[in-house]
């Protein structure tokens, strides 16, 4: 049972870390738009530049 002395704080610290991370992410607006960023990443790199028309 002595192992609890290490495991418990470890578990609590890990849990706390995730809660903190979630809190931080929500506060930063990471959850404000769930649709667009997921779609945006699908765009191919080579489509990211416009083939400028020669004037």
């Amino acid at each position, binding site marked *: 049972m002595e192992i609890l002395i290490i495991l418990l704080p470890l*578990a609590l610290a890990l849990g706390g870390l*995730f*809660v903190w991370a979630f809190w931080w992410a*929500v506060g930063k607006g990471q959850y404000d*738009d769930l*649709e667009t960023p997921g*779609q*945006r990443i699908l*765009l191919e790199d080579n489509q990211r530049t*416009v083939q400028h028309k020669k004037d």
Partner: protein
Amino acid sequence: MSTCVHCDEAATYPYFQTEDVAKLRPFCCVGCMTVFQVLHSKGLSAYYDIKNNRPSFKRRSPVENKKQEYTFLDGQDFQKEYVQHYAEGRRSMDFYLEGIHCLACLWLIEKLPEFVEGVVNSKLDLERSCATITVSENGLFSKAAIELNELGYRPHPMRDRAESSAMALEEERSSLKRIGIAGAAAGNIMIYAIAIYAGAPAEVAVFFNALTVAFAVPVLTFSAWPFYQSAYTSLRNRRLSIDFPISVALILGGVMGILNLRHGQHENYFDSLCALVFLLLLSRYFLRKIQENGLRPGDMSFLHQSETVVKKNSSGEFTEAHIRSLVAGDIVRISPDEFFPADGIILEGSSRVNLSLLTGESSPVKLETGDAIYSGTQNLDGDIIVRTTLCGSESRLGSILRQVETGWASRSRISDFSANAGTFFTIAVTLLSLILFFLRYPTDGFEGALIQAITLLIVTCPCALALSVPLTFHRSLSLAAKNGIIIKNEVALEKLNSAENIFFDKTGTLTVGHPQVENFECLRSDGATVEDAVYSLELKSRHPVAVALKEFLRPRHVRLLEVSAREEIPGHGIKGMIDGNMYEINRDGVFRNCSLVATFHVRDLPRPESTKVLRELMNNHYKVSVLSGDCQENVDRLATDLRLGPSFTTRALLRPEEKVSAIPRNHSVMIGDGANDSLAMQQASVGIAVSGSMEVSLRAADIYLVQPGIEGVAQVMTLAKETMKVIHRNLVLSVLYNITSVGLVFSGHIHPLVAAIIMPVSSLTVLLSSFWGTKQLRTLWKS
């Protein structure tokens, strides 16, 4: 059949881009073709590669192209309200964009800085169809707006970061935080609770118990706050909502847990309570999300009426302005097809005006110089100049809107069902706890009896019901949304279920809302030539009859013929020379060289599905009637057309107030589209606005049909019936579970471990029942 290259709509009578025959592509309309050409000329053809390789997630419609200058966007006064400022003189404005539907749109919009001068950043929120455009110090918003318009996304400026939207965002974030905390705590508590149940040694158990209390405190305070709040407000309004027993259970559970910890006992209900808080918050969050999704401006047709007016400025020129800048006394020019932005008097010109949305009258009215016009009516065929007399909320439309808004605020939006269920549960549970307390007091003493009474309160908390109701509604609402039925409030479903009388508006609801051709009859053998001639002659006319004729003839593969000496005679008809013959079209028919060659009738015809939908409703024992503002003759004609028999009642010539008095407050449904229906929609227990309704009707309605037509009405009635069936079934399950647990408590068998098993099991049963639905719901889900 070919589909439009740009919008993927069926191009039944395709337009072709004719410049390069080798690359012939079909388009459904000129608008889509124009956008295609614009994209090509700008080197943005990759749009189509992206579009064709990715599924789109919204249905889109053909592009309606309308040139606009958007100069008002650059005005100082306008920017004061709409613009946000950043460092180095950068400014940003939010636009709602029409027609956003897929990844390619995202690609295109975010490319904006690369081909529009002055734009430094452009970011699109696909879900909200909202783009944030940032321009440099010297950049012009009008340039970006013109470009967006050209690309087929008509932009509507949105007031940036208005206080309300910032608050909504803050609320959304804090509810996410509440859910997160509850979820994390519930998960962690489970670990220690299981250890305790499994028989952890006493010294460890005490420590674990303390830990569960530590986890539960933020959940029972921070996360559960909305329950306390809503219980408090409903108590203040002398009502018992379902949140009240939940709050009582949570508070008592918390107090008991802490007391037990002090006494060294490790019995508490924190594992069950935290899990329930988590699930309850989650289900309510989902329900709210689906409601918000439905209310997004993208699904509201009112935005599609332009917000731009052409106004005479101080130097006497006509320039574009935003509709909000209009004040009484302004001179505005109204083009055909536009809606009047304010009440006023015609200074110059004459035109036919469509009053149907304001009065229900189906035939267009001819107005001349000096006549009064009202906002919310639509100009049909001539350019006119108007001096405004009453603007904004003072106009006739504005005053209806005001009445609707006050009525809406005072109207009860509380679900009768969950309120009743809450009352029932609370009273029953309180009584049972008191009985239990007095039963046990003689044997177990004060504290023992109290703890048992509290235990009863906790285990009978109607959480299962509170969980299943929002989830069932969530499912039905998202199903409805998928079928183009936007339900603003789940209470509407409940009220639909108890509806007995259904009232329909006539013009625009049961009928199409604009004149259509019936019985076009050619009296000569060369019918095709006559049709071609009629089409060619009417091609440029905006007269309602001409529009109806063109709409009727276009699907018949008409050819365009050369017309000379074309002349439109106001109030009479149109004539012109085609192939050496003099054609004339007037109210009596089509004439060639003064002899009658074809006859036709034009009137506002009923929608093709009207009879079917009404008959279905009548077969389901609803009383169906029509309330119309139109004249008796037209209403009688509709009744004859629909062939529904004597039980179908109609009333004509009703003013908006008379419609209201014709509708009972309870068990009634009103379906309509115009401003003249809006008060009636609000009076009825449920108001349904059909597609193409005015803003004011949309505000008054509880349900909005996105797809044209009234088929949604029958669907939503079925949906309401089936949804309430599921909810009632869940109520029965919930009561059964509670009877069991009350029995267990009275017989002294209850223990936190039993609760930890029974509570999730009961929630799971009702959840499964919600997802299982009914046979009819399952077929609806599948389709």
